[in-house]
């Protein structure tokens, strides 16, 4: 089984479209495929494949810190330790936990010498499963609306997909990541055998490509470039970046009205042409 991440840095370059086109191709070649939508803040692979998300298969929980004031000695260690700046402590006061900034890493209760910070479980997301057709599955993770740190939802969604993979033994599992290079993207990229960085020939596409390739390098995930809408801009910069990271442009996909229409209609499953 090959674990492939579809990423790219910049938003709107066609990550989800490419992920679905890859899955279509693999299924046509008689391989079993799981598409795992890791863009948990706004998953849309299910829309592109004309599916509905009913009955969650799994609820995702995370542990947030809660202060036990009877044990707290106001030492301030938790506030100093927090890398997310999610703990504030006014002088001589109890620390305050700002949930919106919390990454649920758990460092605060690990460092507390008095056991005053207690983990409290809360639901932060859901995982859905759709069978698209024979040998074609879609796993979708969704974070609770307004949740600031969605990385843990991605991790859990991936775990669900990997557990499914153990049962059905697919040839490929495609992790469709969010845009950016932050925690949810890192969670999606970790442990992948290969990443396709989908970008477009624009200055912003190039800028973000540079960031994502740098991240892939740090995570030791080999990355190749897919240049979408390749005929609509200037490729020079993309080629320079490819050279810098010693990688190649695996595929150039020209702008196609056909893909755009299929995308808009949730009809991507029926694209039979090999674009990728």
């Amino acid at each position, binding site marked *: 089984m090959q674990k492939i991440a579809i990423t790219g840095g910049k938003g709107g370059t066609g990550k989800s479209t490419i992920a679905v086109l890859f899955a279509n191709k693999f299924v046509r070649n008689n391989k079993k495929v799981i598409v795992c939508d890791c863009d948990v803040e706004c998953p849309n692979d299910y829309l592109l494949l004309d599916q509905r998300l009913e009955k969650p298969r799994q609820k995702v929980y995370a542990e947030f810190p809660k202060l036990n004031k009877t044990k707290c000695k106001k030492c301030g260690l938790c*506030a100093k330790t927090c890398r997310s*700046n*999610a703990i*504030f*402590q006014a*002088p001589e006061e109890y620390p*305050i936990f*700002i949930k919106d*900034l919390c990454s649920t890493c758990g460092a605060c209760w690990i460092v507390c010498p008095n056991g005053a910070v207690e983990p409290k479980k809360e639901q932060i997301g859901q995982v859905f499963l759709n069978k698209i057709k024979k040998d074609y599955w879609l796993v979708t993770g969704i974070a609770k609306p307004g949740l600031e740190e969605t990385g843990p939802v991605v991790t859990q969604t991936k775990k669900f997909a990997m557990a499914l993979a153990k049962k059905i033994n697919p040839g490929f599992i495609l992790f469709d990541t969010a845009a950016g290079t*932050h925690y949810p993207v890192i969670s999606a990229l970790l442990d992948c055998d290969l990443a396709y960085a989908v970008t477009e020939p624009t200055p912003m596409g190039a800028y973000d490509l540079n960031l994502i390739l740098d991240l892939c390098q740090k995570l030791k995930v080999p990355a190749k470039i897919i240049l979408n809408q390749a005929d609509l801009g200037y490729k020079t910069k993309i080629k320079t970046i490819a050279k810098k990271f010693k990688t190649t442009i695996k595929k150039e996909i020209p702008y196609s009205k056909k893909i755009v229409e299929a995308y808009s209609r949730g009809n991507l499953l029926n694209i039979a042409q090999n674009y990728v």
Partner: protein
Amino acid sequence: MKICICTAGSDLKSLVDQVFGRCSYFLFVDTETEESRAIKNKAKKTVRGAGIAAAQIIADEKAELVIAGNIGPNALAALEQSDIKVISGASGTAKKVLEKFEKGELK
């Protein structure tokens, strides 16, 4: 009174930075002695929660009043929690802002 002005530079000639959490310097001014001292804002480069981190620096310095440009809800709540008053919407040089404050023109 110990005042903290969020500034773009390290002295009284500097402009008030329009962002709070990611301002360049905190200029602490003692209104009695008129002494000022600037601290580089370490929160400027944090990925997130810069407002909280900045409020923590100011609270640790035990300032009584913050004069800032724009300030977000998290930082505002944190400062209020520490009994630190906040005047937002300030602009111009720190010196001008200070003069205005002393004349009671800053609200």
